[in-house]
């Protein structure tokens, strides 16, 4: 049964329905924003994690020119290694204008690590030498299906392949080969075939998984592998393009989401708090009457918490609907065009939803109950009298007679009221500032991204073309390339390595180490104060973000480890304001000075040419 007090409060709410509706809208938007973004992030994260688990994503990828049977067995017999398989990896191109490249993996036994997921057709039976399983995205982009024949290679090395199945693969959840920021399914794809189908290619890759219970660090495993396989490059998940890009994207979305949600939530909380406490203050005389009738403080406060409850419950429902069906669904729709996973749909709930509902409940019930309690400290008799105006009826402005005299009567009242309730004025100001800054934040983000891109391409990046060489090249090949580029105004040769950087307290970062000539003109570096800087004889440049992540400053020495295990020590020569990426840059002299153990032949060299 509804008590009279509840009935009264419900009618109060009905009378204030517009204010309540406004608060419900603000609160549900707050809930929707925070939980919607997180709903999307956790959906993708969970789906991807499940997929990694289910398809047994490798923990490490080892590259070596030739992997023999004994190499494989040696790796298998290392402690804590669960599974290891070798594969042949090569790129085959499709002739024609498309310039499409298939990254092809060949296995001599059924894949147990990075197991391809068959979507259509059949798996290979192990003996076919001209059949393959094709990347679903690539097949879609080229309108290929099971049973079609594709031709690869040029002239006499041309080969025809039967598409036996269409697959998805856990290594290619986000397939944007180096240099691409978004996938280009028309151009880059992958395929699986039998090892016997690629007789000229040696086994050159080992994928392995580590026992879950293993407590060996990444460094320890890498070292073990390197000791076993001389001259091998080892890549952990954190360097694997797809894994890294998915993880980075999710962190990015989450951070931006958190930033916006917090700003929005604070504003919403403030507005809600002010409105609810003002509604409570309007109840002053009614509280007095209730007290005079013998209602206890607890009964009154408890009932007025209904104010909060009746805001929280609709906000919760509305917020969830917006979060689930608008925000998360929208982001997910975009997300799954980039992430090649089994899209099972947005999960309905995450902890974040309950957290945000809890926040709303705390703010609304808190505001109602606290202002109720504050009022109830007064005696019933004084509650029944209207609130006496605050002391000091005169405000400072009144002393400035010429100004005050010029104000109209209503102007005087407005100014007085403005200054009389300082707390309320302050809250109002903060609310307005909060909302305005949210709007500005949106535009600002857009502007600063544009400004950053302008800065990146006007000031920092001076080159027009970047040529990446996949394989080590001889001097002749290089001069051939230089010849074809003879109209270029400037060419800078660079080397780029994936490295691990070890910072304070076990912090590991995995950027590229880019080595260039001291005289290079392709990149213009500026320190954080805006002064141009050039590569010194010693040490490297890092970005402020990298410095913060590693907890280092100018003058500190970092240790960089290449994927093959060689060590380079680099002093932080300067922190440069580099708007793109988080890489480490250094001059050739400093690089060769820093080498602590022999460096392999250039494993990745690229040319930067300015035209």
């Amino acid at each position, binding site marked *: 049964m509804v008590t009279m*007090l509840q009935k009264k409060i419900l009618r109060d709410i009905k009378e204030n329905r517009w204010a309540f509706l406004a608060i419900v809208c603000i609160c549900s938007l707050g809930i929707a924003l925070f939980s919607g973004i997180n709903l999307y992030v956790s959906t993708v994260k969970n789906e991807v994690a499940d997929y990694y688990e289910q398809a047994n994503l490798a923990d490490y990828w080892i590259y070596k020119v030739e992997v023999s049977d004994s190499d494989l067995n040696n790796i298998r017999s290392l402690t804590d290694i669960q599974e290891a398989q070798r594969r042949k990896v090569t790129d085959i191109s499709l002739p024609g204008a498309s310039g499409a490249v298939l990254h092809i993996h060949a296995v001599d036994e059924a894949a147990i690590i990075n197991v391809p997921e068959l979507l259509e057709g059949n798996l290979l039976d192990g003996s076919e030498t001209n059949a393959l399983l094709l990347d679903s995205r690539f097949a879609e982009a080229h309108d290929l299906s099971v049973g079609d024949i594709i031709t690869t290679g040029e002239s006499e090395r041309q080969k025809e392949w039967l598409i036996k199945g269409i697959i998805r693969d856990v290594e290619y959840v986000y397939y944007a080969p180096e240099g691409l920021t978004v996938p280009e399914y028309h151009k880059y794809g992958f395929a699986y075939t039998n090892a016997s189908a690629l007789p000229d290619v040696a086994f050159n890759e080992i994928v392995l998984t580590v026992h879950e219970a293993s407590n060996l660090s990444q460094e320890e495993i890498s070292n073990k592998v390197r000791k076993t396989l001389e001259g091998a490059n080892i890549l952990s998940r954190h360097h694997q393009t797809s894994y890294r890009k998915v993880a980075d994207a999710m962190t990015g979305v989450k951070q931006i989401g958190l930033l916006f949600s917090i700003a929005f939530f604070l504003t919403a909380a403030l507005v809600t708090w002010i409105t609810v406490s003002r509604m409570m203050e309007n109840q002053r005389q*009614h509280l007095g*009457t*209730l007290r*005079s*009738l*013998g209602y206890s403080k607890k009964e009154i406060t408890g009932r007025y918490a209904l104010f909060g409850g009746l805001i929280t419950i609709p906000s919760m429902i509305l917020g969830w609907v917006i979060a689930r069906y608008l925000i998360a669904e929208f982001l997910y729709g975009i997300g799954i065009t980039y992430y090649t996973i089994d899209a099972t749909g947005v999960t309905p709930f995450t902890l974040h939803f309950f957290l945000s509902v809890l926040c709303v409940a705390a703010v609304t019930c808190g505001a109602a109950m606290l202002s109720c309690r504050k009022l109830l400290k007064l*005696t019933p008799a*004084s509650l029944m009298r209207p609130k006496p105006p605050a002391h000091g009826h005169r405000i400072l402005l009144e002393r400035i007679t010429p100004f005050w005299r010029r104000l109209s009567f209503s102007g005087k009242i407005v100014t007085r009221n403005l200054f009389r309730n300082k707390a309320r004025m302050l809250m109002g100001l903060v609310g307005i500032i909060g909302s305005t800054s949210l709007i500005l934040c949106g535009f600002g983000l857009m502007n600063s991204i544009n400004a950053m891109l302008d800065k990146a391409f006007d000031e920092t990046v001076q080159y027009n073309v970047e040529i990446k060489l996949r394989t080590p090249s001889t001097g002749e090949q290089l001069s051939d390339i230089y010849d074809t580029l003879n109209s270029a105004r400037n060419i800078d040769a660079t080397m780029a390595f994936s490295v691990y950087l070890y910072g304070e307290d076990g912090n590991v970062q995995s950027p590229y180490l880019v080595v260039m000539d001291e005289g290079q003109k392709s990149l213009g570096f500026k320190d954080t104060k805006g002064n141009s800087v050039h590569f010194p004889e010693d040490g490297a440049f890092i970005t402020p973000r990298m410095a913060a992540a590693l907890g280092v400053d100018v003058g500190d020495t970092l240790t960089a480890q290449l994927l093959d295990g060689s060590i380079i020590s680099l002093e932080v020569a300067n922190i440069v304001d580099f708007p793109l990426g988080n890489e480490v840059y250094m001059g050739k002299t400093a690089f060769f000075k820093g080498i602590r153990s022999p460096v392999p032949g250039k494993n990745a060299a690229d040319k930067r040419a300015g035209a």
Partner: protein
Amino acid sequence: MADVIFDNVSKDYQIGEITIQAAKKVSFQVRNGELGIILGPSGAGKTTVLNLLGGMENATSGKILFDGKDITVMNDLELTDYRRYKIGFVFQFYNLIPNLTAAENVELAKQVCRSPLEPEEALGIVGLKDRIHNFPAQLSGGEQQRVAIARAICKKPDLLLCDEPTGALDTETGKTVLRVLSDISRKWEKR
């Protein structure tokens, strides 16, 4: 034995540096079953005295005994119980809840009592039986005052405090209301 004893009770209000003495060393006694009347000009302190007696305000000094218990030393919970079970208050300005009907206003008081009158009955006593579903804004001042009386008497209180209960009534209705009040005091006389 006297039921209500005011013993040297004073009430001061402090406004800035000025102290206003709303009640100055008031002493009186009212016996069980008696209908006591406080008379005085406007601003004399009548409302103040009733508020003190109803446990609505704290006395600055002095003792207020009800049934032998000093209410000036009661804590908040005891005072709440005192107002709930012992006191019925008719305020000078009625203080009805505007978004509850006459019957609901009475019901609001009834719901915290032990053996109350039904709202219809209480409203019947004050002659408002046919207006029970009207909101205060739909009633005249005098009718509102009578709803306030009905709200007070439905609690069947030990002590009925009425602040100018006939202030808004014409002579005839005023007389009726006073008769009702004295009837009630006789009928509900506690032994």
